């Protein structure tokens, strides 16, 4: 990364100072009781590099407009395949210098550094991506970033900043991958996205790590007037993963959706904390997360619809459904509401259940063995989320990745 301009260096200094000043998280805090920060390798000494088994093969760039790939924080040359005029896809460290007027007002504005995970990322991120889509421009193919950990370093820190201007349209994919690692490696990622009036952004986050990875992910989206933002998060890999998407409806008439699926097997532990905040009237938000849990895995969903005073006409929904596939697997679901405006439509639901016996019998009566029948039902259960991904090829790849977990 090139030398950061003074304002960016100062932010980094402050973040580093905050790390010392902020109280150490013990895991006794209400927000952290399900996933102690120590399990995310956020406290204690930085993990040393771990050996790896195998390597990661990246999918072809076919069907992408651009790709930025980072290995252990080191960027490969950007692959710009087909970008319309005015669209910027750049390494974020370089964008701090080249595109200060665009980056400076927004970077750290949705996800700052006054809390520990935020400060950690702000102090250390190196694998950064900047995506800018100017007014009215429609990017037809997705921009993709890939963060790869090889185990050579003890941590990988990524940061993505996306700006979609008025009436513009884009899809961005953030992909997190590694081979199975012999020891713990800490990952941190922050995605900030801004969708201006009438703009449209689809963001897909795919957490496909191998074993050993401990990942804290923050996803924040701001939607302007009549803008649409869709965050789709797919968590399949890593030992301990905590994902915190927050959708800010900053403009009236905006439409913000956070969709997710997770499939935890073996001894995996995933926590998703998904929030929509209605800072403007007449906005729509929908949070839908679906999970399957097998073996001794454990998942946690915390969802919250926040409607402060002054947001009449809010239309907000929240649903979390979990399927327990085997004895010993566990899921917790905590759907929450904080509503301080009177004229709103809000609903929330959380459920943990088993696969329907009649569905299992129906498939078994066609010769399909029991566990395979349950998996088929689970993939069908995930389809509601996958169907929200516009690019068929990506949808198919993620469906195949979920299937590959239990092959």
């Amino acid at each position, binding site marked *: 990364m090139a030398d950061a301009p003074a304002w960016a260096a100062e932010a980094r200094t402050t973040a580093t100072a905050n790390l010392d000043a902020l109280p150490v998280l013990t895991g006794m805090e209400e927000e952290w009781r399900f996933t102690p920060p120590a399990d995310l390798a956020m406290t204690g000494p930085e993990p040393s590099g771990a050996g790896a088994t195998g390597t990661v093969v990246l999918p072809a760039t076919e069907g992408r407009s651009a790709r930025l790939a980072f290995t252990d924080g080191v960027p490969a040359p950007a692959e710009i395949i087909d970008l319309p005029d005015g669209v910027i896809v750049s390494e974020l460290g370089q964008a701090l210098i080249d595109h200060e007027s665009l980056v400076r007002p927004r970077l750290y504005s949705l996800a700052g550094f006054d809390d520990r995970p935020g400060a950690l990322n702000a102090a250390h991120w190196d694998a950064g991506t900047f995506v800018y889509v100017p007014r009215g421009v429609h990017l037809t193919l997705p921009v993709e970033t890939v963060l790869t950990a090889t185990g050579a370093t003890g941590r990988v820190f990524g940061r993505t900043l996306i700006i979609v201007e008025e009436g513009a349209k884009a899809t961005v994919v953030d992909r997190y991958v590694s081979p199975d690692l012999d020891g713990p490696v800490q990952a941190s990622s922050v995605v900030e996205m801004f969708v201006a009036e009438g703009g449209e952004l689809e963001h897909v986050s795919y957490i496909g790590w191998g074993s050993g990875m401990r990942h804290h992910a923050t996803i924040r989206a701001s939607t302007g007037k009549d803008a649409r933002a869709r965050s789709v998060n797919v968590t399949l890999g890593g030992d301990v993963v905590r994902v915190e998407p927050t959708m800010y409806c900053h403009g009236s008439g905006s439409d913000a959706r956070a969709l997710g699926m997770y499939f935890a097997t073996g001894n995996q532990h995933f926590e998703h904390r998904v929030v929509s905040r209605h800072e403007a009237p007449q906005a729509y938000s929908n949070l839908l997360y679906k999970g399957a849990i097998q073996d001794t895995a454990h998942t946690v969903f915390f969802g919250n619809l926040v409607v402060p005073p002054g947001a009449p006409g809010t239309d907000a929904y929240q649903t979390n459904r979990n399927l327990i596939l085997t004895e010993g697997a566990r899921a917790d679901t905590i759907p929450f509401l904080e509503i301080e405006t009177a004229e709103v439509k809000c609903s929330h639901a959380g459920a943990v259940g088993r696969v*329907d016996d009649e569905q299992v019998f*129906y498939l*078994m009566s*066609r010769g399909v063995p029991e566990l*395979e029948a349950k998996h088929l039902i689970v993939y069908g259960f995930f389809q509601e989320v996958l169907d929200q991904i516009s690019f068929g090829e990506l949808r198919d790849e993620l469906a195949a990745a979920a299937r590959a977990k239990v092959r």
Partner: protein
Amino acid sequence: MPDPILKITGLEVAVDNTPILKGVDLEVPQGEVHALMGPNGSGKSTLAYALAGHPRYEITGGSVLFGGEDLAEMAADERAQKGLFLAMQYPVEVPGVSVMNFLRTAVNASRGEEIPVREFAKLFKEKSALLQFDPSFSDRYLNEGFSGGEKKRHEILQMALLEPKFAILDETDSGLDVDALRIVSEGVNAQRGPDLGCLIITHYTRILRYITPDVVHVMFEGRIAQTGGPELAEHLEDKGYVEFGSHEPANAPN
């Protein structure tokens, strides 16, 4: 006479600890089509589920041999792999699972090996045309939003693809209009023969006008009360189940 594909002896079945079947004796030689008739609550569907291996239907006595093997020892998937098929009265919806994905998984499972994609596509095209399905049907989610007729035709399509040795059709005629009943019956007739025997479970005689049975059994209160030829069905058409102590008619309600 060929060996029976299905030999049921003194079968007792309980559902949630309530005895439903109280000693059923029934034998179907390979390749024959038998009808199992009876009024509501006589135990016909219980027999179907018990044979297919639904875990709620507990075999508490007697035996069932399928091709000489003890069915009670097998889970539902194993029974299907041995060539037993149940066309269900109420096919279950499985959201998000496409018909194509389901059918290919089922064919692979029952064959015990992966069918090549092209071979499957050809097979699907041929059999779905037989049952008058539009090709776009394959992208729909399993039984979700299917009409009553589509569900039943889809059951028979599965039977055509899985090529079982023996099929139980549980009230396949219920809720079908004449056209759908004709399509379903033609589907069954195209498959019946020395390699496929059937047990057609029905309350009404209507479907038996399209699929002529070799033997007709009447079930009442958890036992086989009478066995005869096709003329027994005609007799029931006229008299209903009155001589078995039920006032339900057996001629078609619609």
